[in-house]
């Protein structure tokens, strides 16, 4: 029955996420524990987004080299927290904020705005209470259309 304790403790440790982690110059903003964030990525996201966040056209859109561009357009920050896979992930608000911050820094550091403010548990908690459903793909298409196409760093 020990396996039952794993998700339970994952949720429990989420409450204690405010404990400071290693904060060097290379620390990811808003990520208290990168190892824990990566494990949450593996258990909650990687199955569909793949280990390198490239996804597949049929299942999950690519995040690698792309996802932080949503932060550059109005409404994009909210979209990233309300998209179904994020909003309904079986994680506490604090753990979810951490893994979102981690995936932005891990998979698309080039597009992370210089003034990026990490998601907080409170912000994520508010946004995920209004999860997107079928309208997610339409909103995504609208946001992507607003991306600055002069940005040459975008992989095609």
């Amino acid at each position, binding site marked *: 029955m020990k*396996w039952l304790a*794993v998700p339970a403790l994952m949720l429990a440790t989420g409450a204690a996420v405010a404990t400071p982690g290693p904060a060097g110059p290379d620390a990811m903003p808003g990520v208290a524990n990168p190892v824990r964030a990566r494990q949450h990525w*593996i258990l909650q996201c990687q199955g569909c987004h793949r280990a390198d966040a490239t996804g597949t056209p049929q299942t999950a859109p690519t995040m690698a080299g792309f996802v932080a561009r949503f932060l550059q357009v109005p409404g994009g920050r909210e979209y990233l927290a309300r998209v179904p896979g994020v909003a309904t992930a079986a994680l506490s608000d604090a753990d979810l904020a951490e893994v979102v911050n981690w995936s932005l820094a891990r998979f698309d550091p080039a597009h992370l705005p210089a003034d990026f403010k990490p998601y907080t548990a409170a912000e994520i908690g508010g946004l995920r209470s209004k999860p997107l459903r079928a309208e997610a793909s339409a909103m995504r298409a609208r946001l992507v259309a607003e991306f600055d196409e002069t940005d040459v760093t975008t992989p095609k």
Partner: protein
Amino acid sequence: MSGLDKFSEKVTRNVARATSRRSLLTLIGGALTGAAVIPVLPVSRAQAQTHGGGGDPVAPQSSGNPQDPGDQTKCDYWRYCAIDGFLCSCCGGSPSSCPPGTEMSPITWIGTCQNPADNRAYIISYNDCCGKSSCGRCLCNRNENDRPMVRPQANNDINWCLGTSSSVYNCSTAVILGVALEQQ
């Protein structure tokens, strides 16, 4: 005490007068038949079969590693704690590789299983092998941490042959991705 004697004598005589030896035989016969019927009930059969499968003539396979104990062609091998499908070990593959002629799905569902050798939780990825029709051997259905359809990313009943050139399901693997963190 004589009251008790009289009472028990009365009861005994009443029983003897109201019932026959044949009715006792009927009762015993009914009980015997009833007991024989219980294993036929689906509850009992499900219990006897545990995780499904069994009876497939596949030779035992072991990694030979004491850190990875168990028979990899049996449903109760530790890495299969949430598997639902045919074991690739019985189909020409292994717990971590696909049979020849099939393609491993890059899209998987991922969970944790406890390794009995060190009692630690390992992160397991259930990659389906796709591109040939169902293997049909060693059907297992264990569902630790399986979630209903409303959480498709953690549901093992759906076909995970996604992102492959063919969506035809052949068998399932259980690939170790790493050791899960110790919980504080």
